[in-house]
């Protein structure tokens, strides 16, 4: 098993060093030419690459924090029991089950100007808009899509964690006259902190890697304005066919992700999760 893991993960990583030091394109795939650090220089000087890094980081921060907040709100909102709660919880979970690529297509249909539900409703109140014209609107659409799909992730973990919290400290705080907000701020959130850290790391890493949903919805456009690093590398490799350059971008992205991940792993170790 370890051989297989190394074969499919560690070896490619080492192999990408080899690729990144060669001029390796569709044209000279079988006999790449050694060019040293040229590919790295090209990546580091590439405005496209840094634009994609900037967009990925922006998307990561906005999506992860919005999902954490909404997920926390939902889990607190559904904390008390009522009839039909199980149905609502299951309903909220479903978007998470759908492949992000398919979910992107769904949203695309929803927003389609001819057949979509949202433009239709907006037309009823006299608003005509194209959801894929300017950056702000597209960015809002992308964040909203990511939120609908991945807030359930945050929600279900926090929901389960809230229900497994010991009741005594919470009840004691209420008896001592604390308000709902104060109990949340000073009792529940501290007890949930380890869980919140874990969820934050998962969401941060997952939104940093986003490919499927954005690729299906915008293809990285208009221009390159919604190109994440994943989409950038994908395009350099598959559409421009420049594997050496893609490998160099891969390695730089690997170290950037490792910086984020090492903070995460340190937090996890401190929380005693791994």
């Amino acid at each position: 098993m370890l051989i297989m893991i190394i074969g499919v993960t560690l070896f490619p990583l080492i192999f990408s060093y080899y690729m990144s030091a060669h001029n390796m394109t569709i044209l000279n795939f079988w006999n790449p030419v050694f060019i040293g650090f040229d590919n790295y220089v090209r990546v580091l000087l590439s405005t496209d690459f840094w634009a994609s890094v900037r967009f990925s980081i922006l998307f990561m921060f906005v999506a992860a924090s919005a999902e954490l907040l909404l997920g926390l709100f939902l889990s607190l909102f559904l904390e008390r029991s009522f009839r039909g709660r199980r149905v609502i919880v299951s309903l909220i979970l479903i978007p998470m089950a759908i492949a992000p690529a398919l979910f992107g297509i769904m949203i695309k249909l929803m927003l389609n100007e001819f057949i979509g539900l949202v433009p239709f409703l907006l037309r009823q109140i006299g608003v005509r808009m194209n959801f894929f014209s300017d950056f702000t609107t597209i960015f809002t659409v992308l964040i909203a899509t990511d939120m609908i799909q991945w807030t359930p992730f945050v929600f279900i973990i926090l929901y389960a964690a809230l229900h497994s919290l010991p009741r005594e400290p919470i009840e004691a705080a209420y008896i001592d006259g604390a308000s709902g907000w104060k109990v949340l701020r000073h009792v529940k959130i501290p007890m949930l902190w380890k869980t919140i850290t874990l969820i934050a790391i998962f969401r941060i890493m997952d939104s940093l890697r986003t490919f499927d949903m954005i690729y299906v919805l915008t293809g990285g456009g208009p221009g390159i304005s919604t190109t994440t690093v994943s989409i950038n590398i994908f395009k350099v490799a598959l559409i421009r066919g420049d594997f050496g350059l893609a490998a160099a971008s891969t390695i730089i992205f690997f170290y950037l992700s490792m910086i984020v991940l090492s903070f995460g792993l340190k937090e996890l170790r401190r929380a005693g999760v791994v």
Partner: protein
Amino acid sequence: MMKNSFFNRIYFGFVLLIIVILFATPIAFVIWTSFRSYGSILAGQFTTFHYSLENYINVLFNPGYAFTKGLWNSLVVSSISTLLAIAVTIPAAYAVARLNTGGGSLIPFIFSMRLLPPIIFAVPLFVLLNFSGLIDNIVGLIVIYTTFNIPLSFLVLRSFVLDIPLEIEESAMTDGCNRLEVLRYVTLPLLKPGLVAASILCFIFTWSEYLFALLFTIKNAVTINVVASQFVTQQAIRYGDIAAAVTVGMIPNTIFLLLIQRYLVRGLTMGALRG
């Protein structure tokens, strides 16, 4: 706590309604669209209803679409890579949980494999698959998905092994079983829910995967997500067909997810939280 006054209940119901609309509308809309006839969709009117199964018939039987091929490939690739990953990780998870093989750095390493962006592995894997002639071949996809299922299945199974009381195994040992017999006759039967949960999680992951499927396939090994995302015909965009394809594509995962709701938290956090 909150007073159960009239206004409170109105507020509660209102927020609940918004939640339901937010999370259910995209899915409901696509399912609804998939049952509308071609003409009815193109009329752009939401007031004319004409339902038919033509989109499904089109998607499943029109030879111009590769949809059934994608569906079949997805089923084969997801099932085989799930089974392989589970088979490989049962002994591994047991060894690490009970004998502490690999020491303290193994778990963070495997955790990182799940958390790192898959694009990091994509470019070199593409070249390697190209060298070995496995591009556009489901064998290539199976090998890669099996590997990426291993961390998930391993960590989830490990957490299930840790849940089995040690005393049961110890008493089997004092009765004369060796380690392998304990694993086979004591641990494995107790691990059944864990095996089901881990398999389903692996299946969901593989079924949803898009990046590798898009990169490593051209025509023969395409998976359902790739087919569905490229569903544009020459004459006109057949929205109904797209909707039908998406609806079919989301069925297995939705059913599976609802089936293992109990173990969902454990699976989503790779066994870090029990839920």
